[in-house]
């Protein structure tokens, strides 16, 4: 009987210490993450959450840039275009698969790029992208370069695009 007598209080003390440590960890993690600071740029309620492209193969002169823009609490707006020193022309495009798995690429516009308050335009591979035509020089892994996004209502926003393998 005596063998176990002291065990319970010791165990419960250790358990509560562990629990407390765990709680502190969780609280710290919550305070650091899950905030608004995951945006690359925020201006007057419009946020750019992501901007990236892949390293471009040496022989090509076209590439796709992927950005995610979110209208947090700005007036209703729409993305209408983009520009960059690294491309002769930048135009929004959409890749879609038809029923026969044929990938078709067309110019994107209108509601596809709509940014009413609370809306988000999310560009991802094999979908919406900014097509960079006439690459000035290949995108090399680790490069960063500016792209300026144009909106139908608000002033243009410039964001740094990172060149990375995803």
């Amino acid at each position, binding site marked *: *009987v005596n063998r176990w007598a002291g065990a319970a209080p010791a165990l419960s003390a250790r358990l509560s210490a562990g629990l407390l440590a765990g709680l502190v960890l969780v609280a710290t993690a919550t305070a650091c993450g899950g905030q608004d600071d995951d945006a690359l740029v925020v201006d007057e309620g419009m946020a750019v959450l992501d901007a990236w492209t*892949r*390293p*471009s*193969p*040496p*022989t*090509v*002169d*076209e*590439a*796709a840039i992927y950005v995610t823009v979110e209208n947090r609490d700005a007036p209703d707006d729409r993305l209408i275009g983009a520009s960059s020193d690294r491309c002769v*022309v930048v*135009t929004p*495009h959409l*890749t879609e*698969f038809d029923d*026969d*798995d*044929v*990938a*078709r*690429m*067309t*110019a994107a516009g209108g509601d596809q790029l709509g940014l009413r308050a609370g809306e988000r335009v999310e560009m991802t*591979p*094999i*979908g919406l*992208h900014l*097509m*960079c*035509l006439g690459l000035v020089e290949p995108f090399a892994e680790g490069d960063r370069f500016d792209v300026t996004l144009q909106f139908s209502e608000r002033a243009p926003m410039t964001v740094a695009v990172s060149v990375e*393998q*995803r």
Partner: protein
Amino acid sequence: MDTFEPTTTTTSSTSSSGSDTGSTATVDASPSPGTGADGGSGRTARKRPWARMFAVLVAAFVAAAVVGWLGLRWITPHPYSGTVMQAPTAAPSMDGLVYSDGTPVDIGAFDGDLLLLFFGYTNCPDVCPTTLSQVATARRQLGGDADRVQVLFVSVDPERDDPGAAGAYVTSFDPDFLAATGEPADVDRVASQYGIFFAKGEAIGDDDYVVDHTATLMGIDTEGHLRIVWPGMLEPERLAADLRELL
């Protein structure tokens, strides 16, 4: 595609027999602690044998669960992410196409290896780099088996892509990737034999254009049969799992 139907039936029947085994183990285990409690007149004295019996039962239950899980995994067919051909046919020849170094493509030379085929064009900004990156990542995940997976990119835009340019393009994704193309007539014939559609799409500026094309990835098995087709967008992990199964 229909191959998946019978496969699914087999899976569900095996899994139900598997869970039967699981429930038997539970029934065995539950009365036993009761038996221990019956004989517990002197509680402190019998504490240790009781605990030991409980530990043994828990261990037995865990062991049964692990064995059951492993067994289920072993008998359950691999759930392919690609569409497996019901009646695989020999991969059509690629006569007329040449590799980036000018040597003719002999599709039979890949026997013994798994060959992944992708038709595209180098000025393709979105689909082709995405697919080739995914294939390169999946191939890396195979570790030592990567050497047995060959990747061949066929350009359907021979007007702009000469074989050398196609080669420089694909090796930027993986130095082991191969590229081929040929005269427009040969490219047309090979693409149609593989069921690949392509056509000049939207014009961009003065002389630039996009090419709409079938963007599936095709797998030719180690015996030279067109065995599996993957859709355009695929997680590298899922592709790697399929490749491991096919090797």
